[in-house]
């Protein structure tokens, strides 16, 4: 018994020492981490573009971007590409957070973030909020997106295509039809499975603005809510007799795209790059970066927005399944 104690006492690993150990571990961790990150960035710092060398502030500044989950992949990829363009400027820092369009607007208005991401134009309440706080919201279009109405191939396919008017789409999503053959004769007598996005989603906002709001329809309580474009895509692909809507980039071969007419008697338009860019396809929207006032020329915010709208940025936009801006917005 005594021996045990002596041994222990000699060992002398007091908890306090252990704690000191942990704290020094923390410090070492911080130092090593910094050293390594500096080292890594140093490696590829050899060649960098020499443009914009005249003013300095942006090179050491950091900005934060938050908002729409639709724009998130673009902003994420652009931020990475932009920072990779200047590997030597290790204080230039673009931070991207998620949130949602609502969060994007409110945080830009409150000055919590530098750039907001929005997949819809501000609502009147958001404009009022900005006005009350003396803020001008500047919307910078960065990409074009269309909301595509899609159905499972069990409903329609390329040999039996489906085309609907905006109001018919609205009625389906409002739950006014239970079976497909009530929508149009010839469709299967099967219950309609409706997939929608979660409330607050920009995609849902755009969709409802064109198909539900004009007739004051509300989404049926039977609709299944999905939290993201990929989720809706998966659900429609895997669910017989289902209908849903996704962003342009999420259309796949395993679903049938519905052609849409503005109203009965108008032509049914199939969403293509040109029909969307020309504004013929009715359910489309711009994606925006939002700033508090016009960003001062030469600041990091300004440069980043320019980058997203440059040829390189627009390639990223297309790579993520969105449409690049029509020429008049495009700054090559």
């Amino acid at each position, binding site marked *: 018994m005594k021996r045990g104690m002596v041994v222990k006492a000699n060992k*002398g690993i007091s908890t306090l020492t*252990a704690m000191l150990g942990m704290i020094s571990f923390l410090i070492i961790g911080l130092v090593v981490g910094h050293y390594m990150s500096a080292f890594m960035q140093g490696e590829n710092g050899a060649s960098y573009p020499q443009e914009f060398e005249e003013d300095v502030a942006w090179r050491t500044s950091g900005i934060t971007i938050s908002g729409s989950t639709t724009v*998130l992949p673009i902003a994420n990829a652009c931020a990475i590409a932009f920072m990779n363009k200047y590997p030597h400027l*290790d204080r230039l820092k673009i931070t991207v957070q998620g949130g949602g369009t609502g969060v994007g607007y409110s945080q830009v208005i409150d000055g919590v973030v530098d750039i907001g991401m929005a997949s819809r134009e501000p609502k009147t309440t958001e404009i009022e909020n900005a006005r009350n706080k003396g803020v001008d919201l500047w919307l910078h279009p960065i990409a074009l997106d269309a909301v595509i109405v899609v159905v499972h191939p069990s409903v329609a396919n390329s040999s039996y295509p489906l085309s609907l008017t905006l109001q018919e789409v609205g009625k389906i999503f409002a739950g006014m039809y239970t079976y497909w053959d009530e929508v149009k004769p010839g469709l299967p007598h099967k219950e309609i499975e409706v997939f929608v996005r979660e409330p607050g989603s920009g995609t849902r906002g755009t969709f409802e603005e064109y198909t539900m709001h004009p007739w004051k329809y509300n989404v049926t309580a039977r609709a299944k809510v999905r939290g993201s474009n990929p*989720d809706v895509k998966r659900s429609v692909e895997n669910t017989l007799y289902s209908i849903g809507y996704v962003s342009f980039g999420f259309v796949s071969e395993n679903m049938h795209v519905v052609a849409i007419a503005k109203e009965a008697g108008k032509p049914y338009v199939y969403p293509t790059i040109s029909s969307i860019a020309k504004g013929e396809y009715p359910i489309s929207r711009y994606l925006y970066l939002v700033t508090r006032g016009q960003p001062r020329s030469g600041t990091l915010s300004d440069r980043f927005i320019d980058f997203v709208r440059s040829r390189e940025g627009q390639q990223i936009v297309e790579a993520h399944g969105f449409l690049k801006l029509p020429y008049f917005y495009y700054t090559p």
Partner: protein
Amino acid sequence: MAGKISEKVFFAILGVPTIICLAVFLWITSILLSGIGTLRLDLLTTSVLKGGFFEMIVGTAYLLLGATGVAGPIGVFAAIYLTEYARHGRLTRIIDQAINNLAGMPSIIIGLFGYTFFCRQLGLGISLAAGWLTLALMMLPIVIRGTEEAIKMVPNTFKEAALALGASKWETTKSITLPSAAPGIITSVLLGIARVAGETAAILFTACVLVTRGLPKSPFEPVMALAFNLFVKIVALGEPPEKVFGIALILFLLVISFAAVGIALRIYYRRKQPWLR
């Protein structure tokens, strides 16, 4: 004799659930390990900007070290107070209850609280520091419980001997009780780390961002972390499984190794306490 046989059969049937549990564990492990092919070692030290995981791994380490730095000392002192100093009564009962409730509190609630209190009320914003404090709240009960257990295992005779030699109560605690309990304390800290290393809900609104450059240079900057990025990549960005497999695997190995070491140490010291034999 018939009774004996039927009993054996019964116990064998009783063993089936145990086998199911182990099979599930093996299934999960094998699924994750099957992704090991997608993981290249150099990605561990490659920046996120170049498609690697470096900042996420170090960011996770920062979060864990900071949370340990907060919860460790507080937890140990709380446990010392509860076992060595407090008189057992109403107050200790309430504290006890509070610790249990804190241990059972869902992480999303702790995250919500962290967001309103640390980020907004204390003005820390979405930052490493807010993440530390939030995670520390989750670690605290584990550290307190583990330390209490370790201290209780130290035989009274040790302390009495020290006290008889004229040592004060604090001296006894400092130089006899704590050193003897140190392995147990470290074990409890390891288990605490394992508990929060994979935590997502608590840091969802408090500490993490999707992408930024480099590592935070002060505690008031946000970080990237493995668990958070895995979650956002699947749920919000909808990235295909093969792109996130690497993160899932690293996170799994990290957490499992902390837990395994913690659990193994605990068993070792429970068995090897020389004075318990």
